[in-house]
């Protein structure tokens, strides 16, 4: 066997292994999601615990997958959409496990996080190419790396914030009428909810830096720091909506339900930035002349 054949078969073998591991992790996220969902339907705490344990296992396996991918590519593992979807699922799940480590019996937000993690992994596996390829010259920039790391970190944080927000909105009417089965009591609900706000506070500077470093990178690579590309514009919308949320929190009239809704809208905008930049155009039947290459 020539050294080339050896290299190619080694890389093919590693990729095959990576893909099997990635599918198994996706399955674990799916299983965890189902357990969270059954926990909600059946109000059985033990199912919630099982769901969390499954999620811990998938995050451990996913960490190994990310290390493997870094080794395969010889570079940071979040530079193609296939990689960044995987990174997104991992970082959101990890952030959730970290943030929720103190709530012993509260599991509901996990259902949102795991369905997103599973969805992101399935999208990567079914629709994107897993090839490890040399990076295109414009992507070889420190600004780009920091841009992706921080933007994704903020995404992970916003996912968890939105899942807490949605849980809060769902559970609040159930206080005194069964919310206890999910680990909630009236005296800790607001404390739980304040985490959603704290997470946005934590994520907002990260998103700000994500956008700033993206502009700095564009300025360095193409000389134009902003070109109103749909992806850029969506990131600005997300940023504006979270700024709106933080302001709403400072105004008594808006700090309750309106702020909660704005937080969830911010999360939807974030998902649009990440994935669906031209869904709206398609929905309205507007032709998109501007094709964004990911």
């Amino acid at each position, binding site marked *: 066997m020539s050294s*080339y054949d050896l290299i190619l078969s080694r890389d093919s073998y590693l990729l095959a292994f990576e*893909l099997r591991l990635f599918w198994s992790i996706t399955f674990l996220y799916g299983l965890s999601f189902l357990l969270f969902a059954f926990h909600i339907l059946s109000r059985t705490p033990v199912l919630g615990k099982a769901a969390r344990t499954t999620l811990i296992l998938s995050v451990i396996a996913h960490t190994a997958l990310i290390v493997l991918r870094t080794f395969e590519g010889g570079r940071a593992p979040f530079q193609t959409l296939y990689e960044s979807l995987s990174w997104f699922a991992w970082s959101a799940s990890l952030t959730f496990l970290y943030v929720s480590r103190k709530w012993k019996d509260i599991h509901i937000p996990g259902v949102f996080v795991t369905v997103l993690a599973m969805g992101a992994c399935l999208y990567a*596996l079914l629709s994107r190419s897993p090839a490890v390829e040399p990076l295109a010259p414009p992507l070889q920039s420190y600004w780009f790396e920091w841009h992706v790391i921080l933007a994704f970190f903020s995404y992970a944080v916003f996912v968890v914030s939105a899942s807490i927000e949605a849980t809060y909105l769902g559970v609040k009417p159930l206080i005194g009428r069964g919310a206890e089965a999910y680990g909630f009591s009236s005296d800790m609900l607001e404390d739980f909810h304040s985490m959603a706000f704290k997470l946005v506070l934590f994520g907002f500077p990260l998103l700000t830096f994500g956008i700033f470093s993206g502009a700095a990178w564009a300025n*360095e690579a193409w*000389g*134009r720091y902003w070109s109103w590309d749909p992806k850029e514009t969506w990131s600005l*919308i997300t940023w504006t909506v979270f700024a709106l949320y933080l302001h709403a929190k400072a*105004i008594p*009239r808006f700090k309750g339900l309106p702020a909660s809704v704005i937080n969830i809208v911010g999360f939807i905008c974030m998902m649009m930035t990440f994935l669906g930049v031209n869904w709206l155009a398609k929905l*309205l039947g507007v032709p998109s002349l501007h094709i964004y290459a990911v």
Partner: protein
Amino acid sequence: MRYNSFTEKLKNYFTGLGDRHAGSRRFLCWSYKQLSSITTSVYLLGLMALFFMVGTIFPQGGSIDDYIKEGGGFVFFVKLFGLLDFFSSPLFLILAFIFFLNLAICTYERLLVLQESPTFPKSYEPTHILMLAPDFSNAHSELRNAFAKLKFKVVSKDDDWTVVEKGLPYKWLTWLYHLGIILCFLGFILTYLFSFEGTITLKPREAQTLVPDTTGRIQSLWKDKTGQTDFHLKLDSFHTEYAEAPELDFPKDKLSRLAIGLGWKSPDYEMKGESLTAKDWRAKIKVIKGSGTLAEQTVEINEPLEYGNYTFYLLGFEQNFRLSVEDNPILLEAKEDEDIFIPGLGDSIKFGTFRSGTLYKLDGTIEMLKPYTIVKHTGKDTDEELGRIEPGAIMEIDGVNIKLVEVEESAILSYRYDPGVGILWWGGILVLVAMALRFYGSWYRIAYQVTDTASIELNIMTRGLGSSSTKIIKSLEKHLPITKQS
């Protein structure tokens, strides 16, 4: 909050003008009041988000004819509001301007508030109550010492309540990053008014003058005054780096992908055809004037050259092939991947990308490529590869001898003039630093009083994710004999 200082001045000014201006006075004062309110900024931020959304729905930069041809709807509105160039349309600019005013006025008014010395309430609602050991005396001074040890400073004191503070002045930090956003806005405005860009193709070893064919929106008012630059650019050398990139044989359909996940199939990397991808391009550029060199830099993607008021970016390269047919001294010229009709051949051929430079091989070795290009027969659907040719070599195609005499590689640079970037940088850095300190740092304001029943009532206010009232209570416990807390 006091958002009135400027309104007062306005009022006085208009009062001086007499009753004739009473309507304008009232309108201006009302507008100023609205624009100094955070509630207005909530509405404006919402509107801005909606306007941005419009710009993501309609393809920006396209022509209305293309838009209609592609079957785009809402044509009436698209034309009316300039939706295809929305971010330069009056509608958007007006909203952005109002928002800018809102931000500027708020920041100004807040500065006035911050400069005033703070006022403190007479009494506080306790958030924590700490019980002290019964035999403990002198609680007042011990408590003062404890706070001093924890680096708190007394900011207010009356008979009952003492107020102490510690940490980063969060209100100033909030103010500072709003100021940073104003600076960014100013950067955007400068860019919008003054920036322009274009491309220039530099042929090897030929000095070229930059003659911008566009100008910024403002300069276009006296367009004839912006002429060519007084320096020349010269491309000294051009170098490309390639990497060998195997292709992945990977199915597109979902079931086969699942089969790979289950281990029933395997993905395969293979070397097909050339299997080369460009890793990097480098152009050594000189800026010259007369016989002197003013600047010299190797420009790469992500490493532009800054000279004068311009920044030059390496966009890519252009290749020109010169060939002779059957030793004919008149040379034919062609560009990369462009059809050339060869007399006597009755058919056209084309040259692929000319490869020269360094090759990073898959096995980790590096070698210099022997320059070559691939000649192809142009087909209706696909091109047929005829083989490799090196500069100076002759290839016989259907009995016709074709010699590749020379290949010339030019660098395509884009140049840009943008006086907004500098201020945007400073604004951005200010926003980031102040925001990070405000959000991740910590600030405490604690009001306390010692009651007759040997307990301490505390009102703890915190800002920033680094702060925690539990941490403070724990620290107090270290210095004081606290028996119980609620």
